[in-house]
């Protein structure tokens, strides 16, 4: 199934690897190194899935989540973070993220999660 996926992470390598792996599955992928331009992009286009880092300089993943839900309530958000921070994770889950992964994220699991999200 073709779908549009946005990946936001302030480390280039994470976005690049995600892009390569997800394009391999036939998805269209756009990557961003920070939240601000990503949110700008969301004003003009919708993405079925937004994969975002939780802890980033400036706007963080929770704010991304809120904005996505506001602009595109049907989009699913998958949160990834370098810190398996349980409190934030719980808050994020309450706030309706579809899935949550501590880094390093097993690409195979991320793909499965995306498949499930798209199937819902």
């Amino acid at each position, binding site marked *: 199934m073709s779908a549009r996926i946005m990946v936001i992470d302030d480390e280039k*390598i994470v976005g690049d690897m995600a892009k390569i792996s997800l394009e391999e599955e036939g998805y269209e992928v756009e990557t961003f190194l920070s939240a601000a331009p990503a949110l700008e992009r969301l004003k003009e286009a919708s993405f079925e899935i937004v994969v975002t880092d939780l802890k980033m300089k400036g706007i963080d993943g929770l704010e991304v989540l809120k904005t996505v839900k506001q602009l595109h309530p049907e989009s699913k958000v998958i949160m990834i973070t370098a810190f398996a921070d349980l409190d934030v994770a719980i808050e994020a889950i309450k706030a309706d993220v579809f899935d949550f992964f501590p880094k390093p994220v097993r690409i195979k699991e991320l793909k499965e999660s995306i498949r499930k999200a798209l199937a819902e």
Partner: protein
Amino acid sequence: MTSLKQKIGSLMSRYSARHPARAVDVRAVFSSYKKIMDDNGRALEIMTDMGEKTGGGYLFDIVFTRDAYSDLAASVRVSLKDFNQLTAGRHPELEQAFEEIDSHINGLISGTYRSTERLSVPLGQVGPGIAREVGGKSFHLAELKNRLGLEVPDGFVLTVSAYEEFINHNGLGEIISTLEAGDDGPELLHELRERILAGSLPPALEQDLVRQLEQLSGVCGECRLAVRSSAEEEDDVFSFAGQFETVLNVPNEPGAVGQAYRRVLASLFSDEAVAYQRRLGYSPGGLRMAACVLAMVDATASGVAYSTDPLGGKEDLMLINSAWGLGKSVVEGSTAADMYKVERKPPFAVVDSAMGDKETMTCGLGGGGVLEKETPSEMRRTFSLEPKTIAEIARQVTVIEDYFHRPQDVEWAVDSSGRVIILQARPLRVRKGKASVEDRRMSASGTAPGTEEARPALAEHPVLMHDRGSVVQPGAVGGRVFLAGSPEALDEFPRGAILVAHNDSPQFVRVMPYASAIITDTGNTASHMASISREFRVPTVVGAGIATEALRPGAEITLRADEDGSMTVFQGIARELIDEQHDSFLKLEELYEFRRRKYLMKYIAPLNLVNPFTDDFSARNCRTIHDILRFIHEKSMQELIESSRHAEHGRSLKRLDIPFMDDIHVIDIGAGLSAGTGDLIVPEQVVSVPLNAILRGMSYPGAWRKGGVPISISDFLTASIRTGAMLENIDLNLAVISRLYMNLAVRFGYHYSIVDCYCSERPASNHIYFRFMGGAADISKRRRRIDMLAIILDHLGFITKVKGDMITGTISNIGQEEAVRILDQVGRLMAFTRQLDAMLVSDNVVRDYAQRFIDGDYDLFGKGDGQN
């Protein structure tokens, strides 16, 4: 006879007096050894995990890398501390080696690290520590010179720091930032190149250059120079072949060399080179350029050698191209060179040759620069190399290939005195048929779609094995089965085959570049071989149990090993599986950032210290964390063996009564015997796992021949004279044991053996060490016996070394169950060998007897009373 024995006795006591045994508290050494093995085991687990997580199957970031490495370094530090204590600080170089590696890795993690501020470094001073600063090409050349002792031109490197100084000094930083930001239009590149060519050298660099040139003329007089590019990563993952400039025949004058240097720097920004960098995932401007300045070889002939046919011909041969004069014509393909196909092993016979027309040859010009001129006609009709030079080139190329563990593309030259000089060595990409081994391996991504729908039904490819063992490196590949019985058999390894073996062994590193996949019956994912498999990305499954039985030699099979640990072996080449998961790995490899992050694994995972019996197995040669751990393991083991040999026994000595041989004296250093045993014990009271295993082997029906073995008087005399070297230990059979450890020294007849084994739950901590020496019989019989033992020990998976009539073998990284199986075999072997003295009458029987042992046929005397 009695008088002879008395003589031996007096020899013995004289020898002992000269070599007083030191009494050692073996319990303390053993407990320290166990702790070190635990520390090492933890470190290996972290290392394995890092290798997996950064291998392509995971999204990882710098935080992961930093945290994981900091755990790893902490474990290694603990291990080092305990090791220093155990060895009383006898290996101070090890700590230095670790600190050096550690500071590199930390530098790579923080991204701020600069291993040298030096603007120039003589080639002889280049080591792994400054590999990035001197660029890939210079580093490889320095390794050939400094580590392998090969002849390479004298010279020095202008480092990447020099490049940065040059850029800053000439105010080019801004224009390069524009490039990095993505604007690389031809006008901008043109401007940048012009400004580099017109730039001036910073004063400090100018001074360095003058100094280095003076030093060089001190070594090679008036010689001309070659200024070559040596970009970061050049000749590493990608060859950048022909992308950057090389300036030949430059006079040794600062002005001329400075100009050549600027041309080399400018070539980093040629339109083609920038396009190439982009394609490989670099952001142009991000890559830095070092340069090496080398003395020109006054070459009578030169050319290129491929350590293997890059197009993968049927026979596995080396290719050498050669033409008269400087190598430029061959490298650039501007002349038809002579071509030789040469065998890859001594005596490097030429199996095929074709004379090229060599219409032109390149020569240096008096005033600098080179000229391509017409070759004199008599030279066009003559081969440019003599057979002995071809053999010498071939020999050096195999040395280089062995060292870098990869097929090599080598530029060489022959000077007027006939010496072979290596100008450059870089990895060679090999192709095999349509898809190369390399490509197919790279296509084996860690991100295989492993879902049900992704597994097509394979009616025409029956399943031969399913879900056995542990996946070390995932991938889906096809190839022919090659059963590796012994290390020598690897010489015959056909490119692209799937290596199937009973044990995993670091010796397989020799064929890794050629293997499509590896499957072993035993072994574990933290073994040395496993980490090498990951390094080379060879799909590998270990501990598969039945591979050597289930897979027929020569049969075509397809291995599918998934990242989630599932594996299947199909009969035949299942192309649909192999093609299904195409080249996401290639793409990952092309991410500069991915390589940069992975780069630090180069300081962690590769294992250079493979064979403990070679001279380069030293603390000084530890270049990775893995090397450090391996060194600690080996030396700790030796320490333990040594201390067991000198164990202080006193009151704790017990006697084990064995019906078929002299008593074994036992020192129990921890739960090796069942509780409440008296001074005299029987085999049933032995709890020690390794001692039990070896006793079981020694008493195996048939392996032990009752009664003495006939021995001639002359053999006995030889034995008596020769035993001098081992008199220290000859007085009694002794075993130092715990539940999981054993050091056993026994004398059977005139042979003397030591077996040392630790077999815990953690394979990475375990080892078996076996030494056999001495013995009666004349020199040829002794040599045959050692030959026979070598065949059998190799078969059992030992790495062996023969010295005179002594053979030593070790196995490390071995599961408990497997260790027990091998000890049982070693026990049988010790018993079996006992009857051999009189039997090894000719060279022909050596292989036959070895095979009979391997087949479990121990009765060499045939039925009946067993006399000749």
